[in-house]
């Protein structure tokens, strides 16, 4: 008998390290509880998926390049960022207390079948094409796809 899995969706709008960790902690836990989980990455959330630090390409216009140059895959934290010192201190603290890092959680989430969906509108605005993002992104879609999934999901989060 095919089991109908319960669903969960997350919109990751934020490109902050701490918020991304919260999103991936919940996604990983839900997937480990036999739920089907999808994360929609939009706007700053796409920074989590950038393959390289800046993800600037030749096809981007000057404004897009500026945006990608100033908002990179090196994620800040939402409070006490202190020009990048905050994330460094936070990573040290997390390592000391043996907490899973964002890359650990992302790896686990893929292993447990969490689906990554990149918002095509944000990708278009920021000039990010498929090649600029990590290959784990399984779909490129828009708001209707999110709503169709969210409608059938019991847990929907916007982070």
């Amino acid at each position: 008998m095919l089991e109908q899995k319960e669903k969960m969706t997350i919109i990751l709008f934020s490109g902050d390290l701490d918020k991304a960790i919260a999103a991936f902690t919940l996604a990983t836990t839900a997937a480990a509880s036999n739920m089907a989980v999808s994360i929609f990455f939009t706007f700053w959330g796409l920074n989590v998926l950038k393959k390289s630090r800046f993800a600037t390409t030749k096809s981007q216009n000057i404004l897009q390049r500026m945006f990608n140059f100033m908002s990179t895959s090196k994620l800040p934290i939402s409070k006490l960022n202190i020009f990048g010192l905050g994330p460094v201190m936070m990573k040290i603290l997390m390592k000391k207390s043996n907490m899973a890092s964002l890359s650990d959680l992302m790896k686990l989430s893929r292993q447990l079948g969490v689906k990554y969906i990149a918002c095509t509108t944000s990708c278009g605005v920021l000039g990010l094409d498929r090649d600029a993002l990590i290959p784990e992104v399984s779909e490129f879609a828009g708001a209707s796809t999110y709503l169709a999934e969210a409608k059938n999901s019991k847990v929907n989060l916007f982070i």
Partner: protein
Amino acid sequence: MKADRTIDCTGLYCPMPVVKTKLELENMQSGEVLEVLADDPGFEKDLPNWCELSGEKFLGIFKEGNKLKGYVRKK
């Protein structure tokens, strides 16, 4: 309680103990019992709740000092 397998999640925080529990159960046979050692205080509540979500059978969780020993039977 007698267990077929044991995993040690001592020193790990949420969500790692339940994620490791899930991954270990994937390699076990139906009816087998997994023992999970942990010291994240949240795990005492998280394990029974995770079992309810995932449909695995929760057998109990025991506290000795700040150490927790949880037991799950694979469905």
